[in-house]
């Protein structure tokens, strides 16, 4: 069957068997391998992408269910101007080590900040509850996300082109 969706602002489509998950669609058909396969049953969050503004586990969703919808993957976060502030802060604080959980964590955090620009530590922890990390633990991520939230609030204009684009589409 044909699946057509908007990925990182571009229309992408492929012929896939109906049992294809969104995760396999992204990784195998579009070669967007930033979303990872960690458990394939929704436990680890390594496959997290943003679908119409919400963080979802791409392994738990069929590609067909995403047909016609808007997906942001980690590959779509950086812009010509540079890395997204979350990417930058994860790099600078050493919040990632092996990096396998990172794309999912960063996208969960982005979905949170898009919805709630001033989350408390507890709100961040809850929003990231579905993202397991085994290397670095979590304190650096939480601190980094809070730092980004503060910076983004103090910089009013479009520090976040990807986010504003996303909002236009499904707003």
């Amino acid at each position, binding site marked *: 069957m044909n699946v057509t969706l908007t990925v990182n602002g571009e229309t992408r489509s492929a012929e896939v068997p109906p049992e294809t998950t969104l995760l396999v669609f992204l990784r195998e058909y579009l070669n967007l391998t930033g979303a990872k396969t960690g458990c394939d049953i929704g436990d680890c969050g390594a496959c997290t992408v943003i679908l119409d503004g919400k963080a979802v586990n791409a392994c738990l969703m069929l590609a067909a269910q995403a047909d016609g919808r808007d997906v942001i993957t980690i590959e779509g976060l950086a812009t010509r101007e540079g890395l997204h502030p979350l990417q930058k802060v994860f790099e600078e604080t050493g919040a990632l080590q092996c990096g396998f959980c990172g794309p999912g964590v960063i996208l969960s955090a982005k979905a949170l900040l898009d919805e709630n620009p001033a989350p408390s530590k507890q709100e961040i922890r809850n929003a990231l509850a579905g993202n397991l*990390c085994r290397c670095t633990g979590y304190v650096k991520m939480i601190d980094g996300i809070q730092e980004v939230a503060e910076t983004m609030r103090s910089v009013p204009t479009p520090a976040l082109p990807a986010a504003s684009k996303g909002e236009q589409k499904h707003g």
Partner: protein
Amino acid sequence: MKFEHPAGLNPIDRLTVVGRPVDRIDGPLKTTGTALYAHERHDVAPNQAYGVVVGAAIARGRVETIDVRAARAAPGVLAVVTTLDVPRLGRGRMNYAYLFGGAEIQHYHQAIAVVVAETFEQARAAAALIRADYTPEQGRFDLAAEAGHAPLHGDGDEPVHRVGDFETAFAAAPVTLDRTYTTPDQSHVMIEPHATVAVWDGDRLTLWTSNQMIAWSKKAVADILGMPAEKVRVVSPYVGGGFGGKLFVRADAVLAALGAKAAGRPVRVALTRPLVINNTTHRPATIQRIRIGAERDGRITAIAHESTSGNLPDGSPETAVAQTKLLYAGAARMIAMRLARLDLPEGNAMRAPGEAPGMMALEIAIDEMAEALGLDPVEFRIRNDTQVDPAHPGRPFSYRDLVGCLRLGAERFGWSARDPKPASVRDGRWLIGLGVAAGFRNNLLTKSSARVELDRHGVVTVSTDMTDIGTGSYTIIAQTAAEMLGVGLEKVVVRLGDSDFPASAGSGGQWGANNATAGVYAACVRLRDAVARKLGLNATDIDFADGEVMSGDRRVPLGEAAGEGLSAEDGIEYGSLAKDYQQSTFAGHFVEVAVDAHTGETRLRRMLAVCSAGRILNPKSARSQVIGAMTMGAGAALMEKLSVDTRRGFFVNHDLAGYEVPVHADIPHQEVIFLDEADPISSPMKAKGVGELGLCGVGAAIANAIYNATGVRVRDYPITLDTYLDRLPRPA
């Protein structure tokens, strides 16, 4: 380079790049999702097919027939290879379970077939059509039931390690403790499952895989497949976590190779999470008896640590007694291990094998002993510090500041505010407790090589088969080369994880950082000599700084000195310093917990680790290592346990919903302090490992904090609330 004498002053001591908290150089690739892990190597070969592994449905016995007709006829299927199609294959030197071949089943989910198809879904659907008939045999799966008759298993030559006369000293001691502690089977839970892309080119095999030890694994692949090692290439530049679970090649690598051969195509195989848990390795459970005798002043006079664990035939024990030989003073000592035969999946290394579960037990025992003596547990540990190997008093520690870790930790953590009387501090509904434990893990030395090239632009390229499993190897190797050759990090390229590169120490046993950078140091020394020779300078009085070679008034840009390019290869090898000195790393772990007085729910509030681990090559990545290890220690203390089905012989909770690891909401404030030190006896880098140290002792610090909070002593891990709820003090 042979390292035979303690390091003197060398270029690393400038610490212009080494020792600085620089960002990981692989950071941008990882935050943008462009670092390529094994399962996404679309780039290495076109036309990749997908393999799915089928695991055995029994734990012990024989597979008699495997009906693959339906699978072969299923849509998209290219090949099916079963374990009955090939004789039993070889196995890696450090493994006990066979990965494939032959009819014998040694453990549940041992691989019996691989199905290769055009798509992953087709391979998975066809795999479900395979029917196997087994003749099961009764296996042994219950460690507690086997422990009573498990034979002694010596460590080296002696079945039991003895110093002095333990029994007499223990009987004479005025204060004694005799307790048994248990730790469960645990799973590594690296977030990336084992995965491999296999490509044959004639009789040459390349595996793009996820692996910690490239040289070991190249040899293991050759042994398993019965082919010459020089025909095997193993590549693993990015690894999504390992923790010991990827020290060895596993079924994904072997079956990708066999599947690719059968299909005549490149084949990609990933293990599913259940297969990661039952098909690969795990940390074996332990039953540990600890006896301590002390004088009333707190001096330990007798200490015994006996541990029983299980494994497959040919397997080795979990060396949970190792640290007890070295951590505390005490004239009379007895250390022993017993190994039960079990038919569970293979027990093998997981982060800090031995010390991790050993410290979980020993450091509760020390807490109990301190209480029996009426001593503060920090003070009791300090009183029993030793600066020499207790079994060989002429053999000092190369550097040991456990006392400093404990003192500074106590000060920073506010230890003096702790009420030694358990269950006496309340914060609303919460019972509050503080706990401490020592951390201890040995520093292992192993040879490691690298090649360093300098081009005419002054760019330095380091190549070594060292892996970066998240630990920061790329970055600290770049820092080492930059320091040695006087260039900025932007002038250094690091290439890792390829068996075509010089063999390194690899990543394991927290030995990677010190040994791999020491190997790069050695190669850089040789390159400096080559530069000097080329310029006709005396290698002993030249300096490398700011991208230039300097000698007296002469300054030559490095690129110019390189001409058409210079290359040097060397490695570090060690003399007798590891024999002459005991080399270890130390920590003080401090934890505050809150236990709900009504429900028994335990919440961590604060964690602090103070580490004495030689020179810290990069405080940022080292801190990440320790914080991650503390988090794993929290899991070990409070939730992690593979539950054994003792009738059918497998780990039941074989997914990440059933095997719980800490999540964001479990982890509160964590801090790490590194004591400012350098250990010139460890290597020219004067560094030691930190990645496993951060785990060792954490679990006991949490257990001790729970005791301080509640007055309930739990000696069986994990400390879930059902183990103590009925013993909680009645809420006031």
